[in-house]
Structure formats: C-alpha cells, structure tokens
C-alpha cells in the first residue's frame, strides 16, 4: 500500500515537474506546477510530516501558486501566453540537466544513509520522531512539537533528558521571518504600485 501510494505521488510529482519544463504554455505550466507541488504534499504526509504537508498545500499550492497565476493573468496577453523556447535550447538544457541529475543522484544514492543514521544515532541519540514517549504518532503527530519548537522549547528532544543547554529552538527565525516578510512585502508593494504624484522627482 505504502509503495503504491509512494509510486503514485512520486510519479505525479516528478511527472508534473517534467511537464512544467516541457510545456510551452504558461497557464498549463501553472497547472502542472500545482500537480507537482500537491503530490509533494502527499509525499510529506507519507513521511509523517503532516504539518509540513498541510503548510505546503496551504501556502505553496494555495498561496504562492495563486500568486504566480495572478502574475500570469496580469502579463499573459495573447502573444505572451506561449513564448516558445527553441528546440536547440531545450536539447542543450536537457543535456546539461541529465548530467546534473546524474551527478546528484549518483552522489546521493551512493551513500549508505541508513548505516550513517544508525552510526550517528548510536552516538548522538535516537531520532526524536521514532522515540516512544511524548511524541507518539497517535498524539497529533508533529504539530504540537513544531508549535513548541517555534516558540523555542524542544519538548520532543529535551523532555526527560539530562542536558545542560536546551536544544535548538526556533523562536528567533519564527520572529525574524515576520520582519523579513514585512520588509519584503513593502518592497513588493513599492514596485507594484504606481507613483502617486505626477511631479517628476529626482529620477537621477
């Protein structure tokens, strides 16, 4: 069952991605992107990352892609709907891509990940997700732990352990990303809006 689901999701994710590359119509690209990202969310669920999967669906598929589609709508007037890349480019890109893929896949798949994990766990402790206790799968999976971690407390790691320092919590990025988003959105809004006044300011 798991294998079947994985095959379906993986095929959809990869196929969607490849379709994005091959498609020449920007609206179709957006559609394939949704499929790809949505299937990735499915993969996240299979990896027991329910919160991440949900976020992926909400923010990525629901937010970012919608943003992109807005962009498509604002710019896709007739001739720009399909701007074809030349076959020469495509072949060249696919050649480079195949090499790149080969490099990454060969490198990554060569590694004995399970062996490494076992070796590291034997010295640095068991992966928290597999550890019975506070964070069992039955208890709402990861959501509660993630929530606590974003406030800086790592109950999943620290509870019941004898540590001098608390483990890494993510309070700072959680807060600072908000500042970042604010700054970025101000910037995006600045670029998108028209000048309000007419008097030509010092452009130079």
């Amino acid at each position, binding site marked *: 069952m798991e294998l079947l689901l994985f095959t379906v999701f993986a095929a959809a994710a990869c196929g969607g991605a490849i379709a994005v590359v091959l498609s020449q119509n920007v609206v179709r690209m957006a559609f394939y992107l949704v499929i790809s990202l949505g299937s990735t969310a499915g993969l996240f669920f299979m990896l027991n990352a329910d919160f991440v999967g949900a976020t992926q669906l909400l923010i990525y598929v629901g937010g970012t892609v919608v943003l992109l589609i807005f962009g498509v709508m604002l710019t896709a007037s007739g001739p720009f709907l399909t701007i074809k*890349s*030349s*076959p*020469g*480019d495509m*072949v*060249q*890109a696919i*050649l*480079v*891509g195949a*090499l*790149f893929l080969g*490099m990454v896949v060969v490198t990554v798949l060569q590694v004995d990940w399970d062996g490494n994990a076992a070796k590291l766990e034997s010295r640095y402790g068991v992966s928290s997700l597999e550890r019975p206790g506070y964070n069992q799968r039955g208890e709402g999976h990861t959501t509660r732990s993630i929530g606590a971690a974003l406030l800086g407390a790592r109950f999943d790691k620290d509870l019941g352990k004898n540590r001098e320092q608390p483990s890494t919590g993510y309070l700072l990025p959680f807060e600072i990303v908000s500042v970042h988003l604010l700054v970025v959105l101000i910037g995006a809004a600045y670029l998108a809006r028209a000048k309000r006044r007419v008097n030509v300011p010092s452009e130079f």
Partner: protein
Amino acid sequence: MTPEAYIQTGTTLKWLLGIAWLLPLVGFAVEIFGGYWGKRFDPASNGKKTKLAAYMAVFCIGTGFLLSLSAFFIWKGATDVQLVTAAHAAEHGESHDGDHGDGHDHHDGHDHDEGHGHDAESGHDQDESHEHPHSNETLPPADDVRGQSPEEAEDHEGHGNDPYAAAFSGTFYELAHFGDLRISIDYYIDGLTLLMFCMVTLIATCIHIFAIGYMSDELTEDYEDHFVHLPGGKHFHRPGRFYRFFAFLSLFSFSMLGLVLAGNIFQVFVFWELVGVCSYLLIGFYVERHSASTAANKAFIMNRVGDFGFLIGLMILWTYFGTFQFANTDPQAAGDLGLFQMARDSHGQLDVVDTEEGKIVHLRGSPEDSERSIPYWLLIAAGIGIFGGCIGKSAQFPLQPWLPDAMEGPTPVSALVHSATMVAAGVYLTGRFYPMFTPEVLLTIAYIGCITLFIGATIAVVATDIKRVLAYSTISQLGYMMLALGVGGWGAGLYHLITHAFFKSLMFLCSGSVIHGCHHEQEMTKMGGLYKKMPITCWTMFIGVVAISGLAIPVLNVGLAGFYSKDAIVASGLAFMSGNATHFLLFFVPLVTAGITAFYMFRLWFMTFAGPPKDQHVYDHAHESPSVMTVPLIILSIFAIGCAWFGVLEGWILTSEPTHVAAGGTSAHHVALTLPSHDAIHGVHHTAGTAALFAAVVGAALSAVFYWKGLVDPAVIKRSFSGVHHFLVEKWQFDNLYDVMFVRPVHVVARWCTSFDKNVLDAFLHSLSRMTVVASSWDRKFDETFVDGLVNIVGTSTYRVGRSLQVVQTGKLRQYIMFIALGVLGLFVLLFMFFPRT
C-alpha cells in the same frame, strides 16, 4: 660620550633632520593650495603669476640645508669621529703603529688596541666607544648575546652592524602593530645619512634656484606648448604650471629626505614608492606630450617590476627576522636588535652552519630564542630581491631603458631626480643594506654594475641629444657605483655617489642652461660654438666634464672630484681581480669604460661649445642665462672641483662603513670569493689610478681629434661601423627586446582574455546548438518529406538554424542560469579530478 650626552645628541639630530625633512612637505601642502587658490588673491599681477611658490620651496629646502649642515657639525663634534681615509688605513696596516689621526681635525690619541689581530679593521675603527662606560651597563643583553668578554665586546662597539655611538637610531612615531610586525617611522642617523642629507639639500637648493629661471615661462595663464600639435596645425594651450612644478619638487625633496632618514627597510620602501610617484609626476610634467606620458608610464612600470623584488625581499626578511629596523643603537631599548645586528656578529661575520637541509645562518636575537635562523639561500634571495628594487630605481641592467626616456621631464628634474638623488637612492640603499648581502649577492651586484656601466657608456657615444648623453652617462656612472659596492669597495661606491651627484647635477643644469638659451633645442648636432654666447655655462660645463672624466695632473695626483672617486673604484676592481682571477672583467671593463667616458663627455662638450656653429638659426638666438640660473652653476662647480680634496669626504663616508668590509675576507659558500681588504685596495691604488688616468687621457684626446680638431671625420667611422652604430643607436635593442618579450605577449593575452567569452564560450554553445539543430531538423526533415515535400524543408531548416543561433546569442539571462548549472558541474568535475581517490 656619556649615555646622557648620547641621548641628547640623538634627540638634537633627530629634530634637526626631522624638521629639515618635513619642511618640504609643508612647502608642498602650501604650494598645492597656493596653486589652486593662489591666483585669486593676486589680481594685480595682470596675467602673470607670482613666483611666491618658488621662493617658498627654496626657503624650505634651503633651511633644510642649513639644518642638515648644522646637524652634521653637531654630529661630528659629539661623536668625535676618527677620520681615516683608505690611504691612511693602509699606511697604518703596513706600519702597525701609524698615528692615524694625523692630518685630520680629530686627533684624540686613543689607545687603539693594536695587537688585537684585526689590524686593518682597527685601522679604521671609529673607536670612540672606548670612552663609553655606558656600553657595559646599558647594553647588558647585547653583550650576552655576543657571548664574548666585555672587553672584546667593547672593542667592536664601533661598527656598522653593532650599536655604536656614531649612529643614532630611534622612532619618530609608531604607526601600528600588526601582530608581531611593528610599523613605525624610524630614523637612522650616521655619517652617511648626514652626508646624504647635506648633499641632497644642497643640490636641491641649487636646482630650486635654477628652476626659478628655467621654469619662468610657465608663469602665465596661457602657456603654449610647442611640442603638442593639435589637429589643424595649432599648438596646445594650457595654464602655466609653475606652482605645480614647485609643489612636485617639494614633495620629491620630502620623499627623498625621508628615504635617506628612514630607519627601517619598510619605511624605505614607502618613501621609495613616493619618490617613484614624484618621478612619475615630474617626468609626465608635460603630460600632453605623448612622449612624456609614455616615458612616465615606462618609468613607473619598470620601477614596479623592480619593486616587486623588493616586496619579496621584505616578506622574507619579515618572516625570518621579524623586524624591519636596520639596527638599534638606542641604549635604552637594548636587546631589540635590528636586522644588521641579527645577521652579523660583532666581527661582521655571518654565522653560517651546514645542516642537513642545507646551509643556514644563525641569527642573533633576544636570549630566549637564540635558535633563530634563516636558510642561507633565502638570505641570498632576500638580498637579490632588495637589490632588485635598486636595479629598478638606479636604472641598472636590465631595467635601464626608462632613464633616458625620463629626460622628457623638465631639465631641473633631470638634474635633481634623475641624476643626483633619486636614481642614486638605489646605490644608497645597496650601501645601507650592505651587511645583509652575502658574497653571492655582491657578485651579482658587481656584474650587474659592470654590464650597466659598459652599456650606458657605449650608447652615450652615439647619442646626439644633449640630455640623453647625460642620461646614459648617469646610467654608466651608477653602474660604476654598483660595481664598486659589489667588489667590496664600499667606500669607493658611496664616495662616487656623492661626487657624481655634484658634477652630474652641474652638467645637467648646464645643459638646461644651454637648452633654455637655445629655446628648447636639445640636439647637439645643431649646436656648436656656443662658448662665445654663454661663457659661464661653457666653463662650468667644462669643469663637470673634466670631473667626470677623471682627469688630473699626473704627477701631483691632483684632480677634480671625479678623479678621486673613480680611482678608488678602479682600484677596488683591480684589488678584487687580484683576489679572484676569474672575475677579471670587473677590472678591465671599468678601466676601458673610463676611457669611453672621457671620450663621450668631451665629445658632448666639443659638439656643443667648440667648433663652428652648425645651425645658424639656433646660434643667433642663443644667449647666456640670467644670473638666477648661472649662480647655482658656479656654486655646484666649486663643489665639483673641490669636494674630494684632502680625502676628508672619503674619511667621513668611511665612518659608516660596515665592520666586515675593511678586513676583506674569503668566503666559499656557493661561490668562492675573496673580497679585498683596505690595504689590498690601497696596495694597487697607484697602479689602478695611473691606468685609469691613462685611459681617460686617451679618451679625451681621441675626442678632441674627432670633434674639435676634426682630424678624423666621425661620419666615416660611423659608416664603416654602421652595424655597431645602429646597434648602439637602437640602445642595444633593449626596447625592441622588451617589446617582443613582454609588451606583445601581454597584448596577445589580453586580447585573448577579452575575447575568451566570445570565441570559446559562445562557440561552445554555438556548436552545441548547431548539433542539436542538425539532429532535430533531420528528424523534422524526415517527418515533413511526407507532408510538404523537399522544397519547403530547405527553407525552414535554414530559418531554424539562424533563429536558434540568434536565440542562443540573445538569451543572456537564461545563459547566466545555465552557467550556474554548468559552473556547479564543472567545479564538481574539477574536484573529482584533483581530490585524492584512495
């Protein structure tokens, strides 16, 4: 001298020289501002600018001269130096009990420790240290390091590579510490420093005064430069640059004095660069002339090449010695040794030890890490590196071609910067840094000097531009100095440096006077017979010519300044040859060149002043220069005549001689070399002097035959040796050689680099796309033969080829992204290739 007196003298000297050094800088600042804003305050001068800047500059440098002079006398009085010329030293060496004070002003009658076994050395011993009780009390660490009995240590206090009382070193201002590296503005004052100070300031003062007259046509708002031809037959007009000239001159004086005063090699480097910059600015003073700006660039670049060696030397020194200071003589900071003290012991010997990794030199240092050492070959490398800087600055082979081109600058600049002071800085540094040079380096120096002096002299024989003759003569004379230093004639080299400065600046100023008088005509072939028109210039020039030729009255051995110093050099060469027979060229080449020198110098004088006028137009307009220009000539000619009389000058120079020079010595590290001692040199002095004088007389006589009496037509000789003549006129083909060796390859590489993107990367993408297009169009062809037929296909496929090519070329942003991917791939492949696999 008591410690208190020592410190007091040191402080006095420090401030006197410090002020003399900084005054030109103040002058520079004022002149720069005066130049830009001065004219606003002087509306009454109706277009003419005031000469205020010039007076200011003269005041600064003149005051500097007075200060240096008083500093010199204070130093002389305080340190009570014992003047010993080489001649006296030798006398002493022979008789073992000569009273070496005789005939000199400071007969102090000290006990000279005759039986010590260092006869020649004690002969020139500055021995004032004998009455310094402080040397034992205040320098205990140094004594410990020497590892000798106190008496012995005391005996050798008075040497150039030991703290000694005739030298004063210290720090003006500490700039910074970078880790271990201490960068500070130091001073190192000894007899050589003071003499250089007096010489530089005196000559600079004369030249400043001369320049007031020479540059007076720049005193206008609208100067027409006749050498710059604009399209349309017009000449270039620009505001006069009187202020700028004196500002640069002041800046140069400041830098040069700083170079001389510097107490550490790094500071020398900084001022080295500064004089280089000043030289660059002054050569390019008439920047609109293409030749001037090219010459400035050439000088700058060639100097940078040498300076690169200097930098490497600096790095080696810093790595192994951890200090840049020359020597530390401050009794209060004893224990912090300078470079010289670390490299050589109190006898002036290097402590070379054979180890498994090759020879190393043990360095003396603070007691706790007495194990410091430097590989011997690195010491050689450092020496050659530093000397590389001197090669560039002193226009030695193979970096000499910039100096003749540098004559594009105004003549006072040539006189000051490119004959008397800056180019001599290389010689000065070689002399100053002498204790750090191993015999291998000295041999290099000697041969470089030997080659240079010959090349310079031979080219000077065929040059016709009056300033260029002098420039080549300068190169040749600098070669003499280097040769002298290289063969162990330390005193002779620096002696010649001082005397040469006087007569060469004199001759340059004379040529300037001629050029000024002839309205900027520099070709000697258009002059002649000028002695009637400009008598003062003519006869002062004659003094210079005689001085540089080394002529003298044979029996009395009385001559002008150049005679003494050149004799000393040739004698050093002869003495060196008698010790090292294989290096016989080091004697014969300078000897022959002495004759050539006399020949071309008299040729210059005869062509310019004697005989009938060759160009009537020039002759008619020629006139004697105003007194503001002739007075400096007269002052300088007095020095050119008499500065070497009685051997006093040489004696003063020898007070700074490094310890190990006097005794000579034999070394057999990488090359076996015997350096002549003072008495060896003196022993052959007479022979060498006679030979040199003979050569000079022959040269002068030949010259008179050719160019004065016209008994032999030089043109005939020129024709019969046209190959040689051409070779010499083309300056031994150096410029062409460098063009082929460096300039053109660099052009090629640069062109290659700039077109790399276009020709390689794009071509790669082109071919890639072409391949794919061929493949796809083949596929398409196959498809469309069934539908449309052959005719259409040819058209569409060619269209597609063109289109996809066009797309590849215009798709910049996507190419960028593609390059990211390619970059990652490429880096990975590279890592794979170079990373160890097993």
